[in-house]
């Protein structure tokens, strides 16, 4: 690859999935109860995208990774304590809400605007990475909208594998129906890849990488531009928690044989 890739990863924070979430009525629409107090993690599929980006950059000399995050500055700063130790990147921060109820198209506009302003970003070498969906809005639309705003017409969703061929072409495996993959070959960058799980484990913490990243992370947080995204045009008619609990019948004293019979009767019933 001539000069390597410029890989921009879009990803932000979501509440730790082990937390209990409850909706409340906020000043501009629905929000989460104690949203700013909830422990946050890197949005899982965006995390996979980031690890894949770092891996690709490492194996393609001359490449560089940016992480563009739209979220509350304080939360992003906390997140950096862990993420910045894992892989090398340059951070771009947009200070705004990261909750699920903001509109994907407003988020996409903010992200595309920030990417547009990255100095020295070579659009002809751009690979735009992100998760195939967030754990907050779970819409699976933001990456395509950012790509569209940046004029990128080769886009892939639910990617588990990217191979760069000898001629610079991108061979991409996307998840499709029935547990199969669609295999595509794209002539090369620029392209949008919205990742599913990929094939890489979470990288271990490496304090050296952390030290290097921190030199750019703190200034990036200080430079953060406000991005007051919302959901203009949406009228919320209600946000409800589903009926969570079932009356679980706990069966402790049946024999294996009896349990098996009960299960088979239920399956056939």
């Amino acid at each position: 690859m001539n000069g390597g890739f410029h890989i921009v990863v879009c990803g932000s924070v979501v509440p730790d999935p082990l937390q209990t979430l409850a909706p409340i009525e906020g000043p501009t629409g629905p929000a989460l109860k104690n949203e700013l107090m909830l422990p946050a993690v890197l949005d899982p599929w965006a995390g996979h995208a980031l690890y894949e980006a770092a891996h690709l950059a490492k194996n393609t000399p001359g490449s560089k990774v940016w992480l563009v995050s739209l979220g509350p500055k304080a939360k992003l700063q906390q997140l950096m304590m862990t993420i910045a130790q894992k892989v090398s990147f340059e951070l771009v921060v947009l200070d705004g809400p990261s909750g699920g109820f903001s509109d994907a198209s407003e988020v996409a506009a903010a992200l595309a605007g920030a990417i547009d302003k990255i100095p020295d970003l070579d659009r002809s070498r751009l690979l735009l990475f992100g998760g195939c969906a967030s754990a907050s809005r779970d819409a699976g639309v933001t990456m395509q909208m950012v790509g569209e705003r940046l004029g990128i017409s080769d886009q892939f969703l639910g990617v588990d594998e990217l191979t760069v061929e000898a001629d610079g072409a991108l061979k991409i495996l996307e998840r499709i129906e029935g547990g199969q993959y669609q295999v595509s070959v794209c002539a090369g960058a620029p392209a949008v890849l919205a990742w599913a799980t990929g094939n890489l484990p979470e990288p271990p913490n490496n304090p050296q990488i952390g030290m290097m990243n921190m030199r750019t992370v703190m200034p990036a947080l200080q430079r953060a531009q406000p991005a007051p995204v919302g959901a203009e045009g949406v009228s919320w008619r209600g946000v409800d928690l589903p009926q969570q609990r079932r009356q679980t019948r706990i069966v402790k004293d049946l024999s294996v044989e009896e349990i098996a019979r009960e299960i088979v009767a239920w399956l056939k019933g």
Partner: protein
Amino acid sequence: MEKILFLAHTQDDGTLPNVAREALAAAVDLTQKIPGSSLSVGLIGQEAKPAADAVAACGAARFLAVTGTEFAASRYASDVAAVEALVSEAQATLIVAPATIRFSRALPGAAQRLQGRIETHVSGLDVVDGAPQIQRWYYRQRMVATLARSQRPWFLVVDAGVFPPWQGAPGAAALDNVAVALPENCTRTRVVGIQSPAVKTQTIRPDAEVLFVAGAGWTKKQADGQLHIKEAEGLILGFLQQCNASLGSSKSLVDQSVEGEAVLSFMSHLNQVGQTGSTPRHPKGLATCCHGEEPHAVGWRFINERRAINTDPNCGWAQGKADVLYVADAFQVMAKVNDLLGG
């Protein structure tokens, strides 16, 4: 007044997927409920006539299609161009489409290009005071919202299994072809094939009656202090075959392959159910050797009847997440279940 466009693409054999008929039922229903609205059908594929004829009786005023070899493949650039042309031709304000992978990739970009908005994973539709409102889940099935929008065009991508499929007699649809000239940058990507998982067994079956979930317990040391991977594989595959069930997994079990631990040979990330996996729809689900932690259990939102087998009476399933928890050894129970199903 809404101009409603039902949008679909054909499958390789020229027919519409089932989920498209479900979305059509939703579009027809909306048209009937919104006063003064009209319905059009827009189809994309190698050819569209058989698919259009199959839904000829749906009440649409117009049948439009973008067809040709370049539109056979599931490819972002050509699909967005086709959708843009169809929506413009129909002057659609509301677009109702099925949540296929192909459309999930392309429709968000099309909505952006048309300066519209899009809602995906639509799980309910209603008309209140003459205007449409939708239901969708947030935070991975943790909470459900009802909302309406002022912007148009508004794309509504309907999840599978929400609406009963549209039924009607085939007929002869008067199909208008909408010409789309693809610019050169729309063919930089070629779809070169479909790859099945490395395993022979097809384990993911969206139409199955039963979801069978295997958790990490299957590959952990058992009471005798030993691993029983081969036995676990035999029991699970035996059950899938007898019951024609779909196979789901917890995250811990599929992560083991990446971490180089002992794994079930037919299991991959594609099987994962939960927060960072799928949220399948099946009438029944049976969880085995799986703890039932919240990030896993959110993937069970659309499983109606839920049972679990776990040696731990205090596992997550006991906390109101399953209807029945059998406190027992899943190796023993599943061996017996397979015997009974086979006999």
